[in-house]
């Protein structure tokens, strides 16, 4: 069985930091009912890459430009590949929360749900008369999870956050990149959107366990920035205890002695291999693979401490040696010799080449009602007994807009035909 079978979640999240949390709950078997309205859809529904229509070539490569969401050029809101992945395993209804009757209908959904999760700005739900007290009066053991960027409590309650904002303020951006005077490199994707999603999921799971054991629901205030701060503890302690502020080290190991430890050029355009040598055995193996050139026999590379001290020079030597090697053959050869080595893989490498990811079935085929079957990233935890995968209870990829209106409104909430027709006419459904 699926471990969260029977848990129903009213999902008012969007984008990644919000919507990625319920995605994980779906993989564990929770029924996620994503609530959307056509006038203010998730931006991801308008953002590429899109599933190509038949016989249509690949979309033109364009830079993301959030300020210029070109809604008119999007033919269908059901074709975004990013949305398809982030919302796999969920159901979806169309529901106009800005309409008073929409909010009444939402309350009926709350009455049959276990969890309400939203990532609006902090005051939205309260303004709609749907604060925790109200939700609790509808369903006494409801778990209500609020996930505004900076948290509900505190002076920054109205501040906005996306992954890059949380990364910047927390210190994660400053910690990434080549040493000063180079600027921080930061993160080339919304790490804290994914991490925000993890904390959304793990907090709801914790509260669900607590409810199973005590019968009590609860209200949770989960910011996107705090989980980022949570990962910087070693650096905070180093400053408090030793008065030392974090200094970027590029790809070099900041606290664990290792050298060589970095990315080295290989044959091909923008091809690199990461090597991490942290003891004498690994060093000896690397030296042997390099053919024991005379430079390796110098005193300045004889011990780990010496190699760390002289790593500028060491990196040059190693970089020259790797530069005429094919990266994957070199990875295999070094790994066989016991040297930790890995190619800096692109998405194409991971999808088309990586035999381990294939073996682990990291992408699973799931069907989307409009764009058909596509590979979806499965969750990276493998259960032995329970049924756990990203298809979730729906066993499909992301829902189309309003795809599950019949199920939710007719079967679950038991609206009469007349009621539903009226609500549709009034712009509520």
């Amino acid at each position, binding site marked *: 069985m699926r471990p969260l079978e029977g848990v129903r979640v009213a999902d008012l999240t969007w984008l990644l930091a919000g919507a990625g949390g319920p995605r994980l709950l779906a993989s564990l078997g929770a029924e996620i009912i994503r609530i959307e309205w056509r006038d203010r859809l998730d931006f991801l529904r308008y953002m590429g890459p899109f599933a190509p229509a038949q016989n249509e070539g690949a979309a033109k490569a364009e830079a993301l430009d959030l300020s210029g969401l070109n809604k008119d050029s999007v033919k269908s809101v059901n074709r975004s590949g990013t949305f398809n992945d982030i919302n796999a395993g969920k159901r979806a209804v169309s529901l106009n929360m800005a309409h008073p009757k929409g909010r009444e209908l939402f309350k009926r959904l709350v009455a049959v749900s276990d969890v309400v999760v939203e990532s609006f700005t902090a005051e939205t739900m309260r303004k709609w008369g749907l604060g925790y007290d109200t939700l609790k009066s509808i369903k006494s053991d409801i778990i209500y999870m609020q996930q505004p960027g900076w948290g509900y409590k505190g002076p*920054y309650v109205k501040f906005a956050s996306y992954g890059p904002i949380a990364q910047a303020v927390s210190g994660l951006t400053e910690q990434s*990149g080549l040493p000063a005077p180079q600027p921080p490199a930061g993160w080339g994707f919304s790490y804290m959107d994914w991490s925000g999603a993890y904390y959304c999921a*793990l907090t709801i799971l*914790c509260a669900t366990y607590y409810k199973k054991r005590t019968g009590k629901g609860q209200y949770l205030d989960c910011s996107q920035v705090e989980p980022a701060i949570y990962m910087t503890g070693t650096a905070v302690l180093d400053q408090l205890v030793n008065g030392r502020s974090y200094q970027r080290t590029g790809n070099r190991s900041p606290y664990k002695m290792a050298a060589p430890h970095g990315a080295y050029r290989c044959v091909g355009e923008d091809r690199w291999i990461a090597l991490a040598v942290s003891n004498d055995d690994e060093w000896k193996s690397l030296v042997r693979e390099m053919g024991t050139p005379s430079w390796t026999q110098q005193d300045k590379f004889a011990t780990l401490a010496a190699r760390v001290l002289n790593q500028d020079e060491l990196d040059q030597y190693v970089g020259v040696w790797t530069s005429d090697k094919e990266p994957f053959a070199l990875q295999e050869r070094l790994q066989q010799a016991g040297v930790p080595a890995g190619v800096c893989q692109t998405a194409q490498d*991971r999808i088309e080449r990586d035999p381990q990811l294939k073996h682990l079935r990291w992408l699973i085929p799931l069907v989307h009602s409009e764009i058909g079957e596509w590979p979806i990233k499965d969750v990276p935890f493998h259960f032995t007994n329970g049924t756990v995968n990203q298809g979730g209870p729906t066993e499909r990829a992301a829902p189309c807009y309003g795809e599950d209106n019949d199920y939710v409104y007719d079967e679950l909430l038991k609206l009469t035909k007349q009621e539903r027709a009226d609500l549709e006419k009034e712009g509520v459904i």
Partner: protein
Amino acid sequence: MQGFLFDVKVLELADEKGEFCGKLLAGAGADVVKVEPPGGNPTRSLGPFYHDEPHADRSLYFWHYNFGKRGVTLDIHSAEGTEVLKKMIAQSDVLLDSLPLETLAKLGLDWPALQALNPRLIYVALSPFGRSGPWRDYKANDLVHLALGGQMMCCGYNPKEDGTYDTPPIAPQMWHAYHIAGNQAFIATVGALIGRETTGEGEMIDVPIHQAVSVCTEIDVPYWIYNQTACYRQTGRHAQPAVGPEVQFPTKDGRYSIILANPFPGGYETVVKFFDEKGHAGDLTSEKYQDPNSRKGIEFARHFADVQANCVAAFDMEEIWRGGQDLGIPWAPIRTPEENLGDAQWQARATFTEVEHPELGQRFSYIGAPMLPNEVTWRQGPRAPLVGEHNEDIYRQLGMSREEVMRLKEREII
């Protein structure tokens, strides 16, 4: 107040791969007992150290990642040690294992044996590449994981004009492969605990770190799946199919800010008004940009970024970003981690917490909870265990006499 997982007992056999997951379990209220070899876990040798003195009880790394746990020492490879371990497993809800593959199996504790010992056990195993497959025995560390997982090819600096790179891909430092895998392992573990409430049965969960890391990038995978388009790394912003406008700008005091475009309706006018009030709107207030159609495309986006850069350059890092946020514009300072200690937001939320180190006669600010629960509390202490600190307590609870504990100590089994 108690924690979410107030009645959950966890036994942790973990190195740096699994310690973060254990930290989360302890934070969520579980009673986490860390089992270390006599003399202490190898992770106690990771720096930085208190006053830069390498010492098993003074690794700041270890302090952070083992906060809130209790600790015992035990030579699990000795016959007697294995028997003690079995007793502890029999009384635990969760066994968290990130030791090298097969370590437990070699002690006769493979999954069937664990189930026989404790049918309700949730056994969660983190390993670099999983239990089987062609790379099963590959060696990895944080850097190698972030290379193979795709993070590095997304992170770094702008390409040159001709599209080639003179800088390497960058792995954001400080153990993120293990953060990612630890978060996922925690999610799976609590999911299994919930499932156990229905089935009454245990579960074995495999978490291959390589897979966890590989699913934690953003648009590069869908761009390849749907359009066979590659993404290119660029300074301080998302890897994308083409080079986009800058979002990271130097400030007057030699620091940096992140300034995102405002995607909301009316956002453009708000931002320009803000720049104008600061005297740095450039030509954005001119007639030619009043028509929204004149503001489309990458050329305008780059021009807009130049205006932002000029405005930001006139202010110190902490001077300007709140003003933007007050108007709903997502801006942020690029802080060092400790610069959050004095921030009013985190003080209001008690994000940092004072923790006693009685062995040093000192107290330090630690990062407390990653969220704010109301019905329960996130664990606020104690500090990480000293080597073997809870041997007496825990082994006595297992039913050993004081003499027996002494004897095990003399024989260096604990």
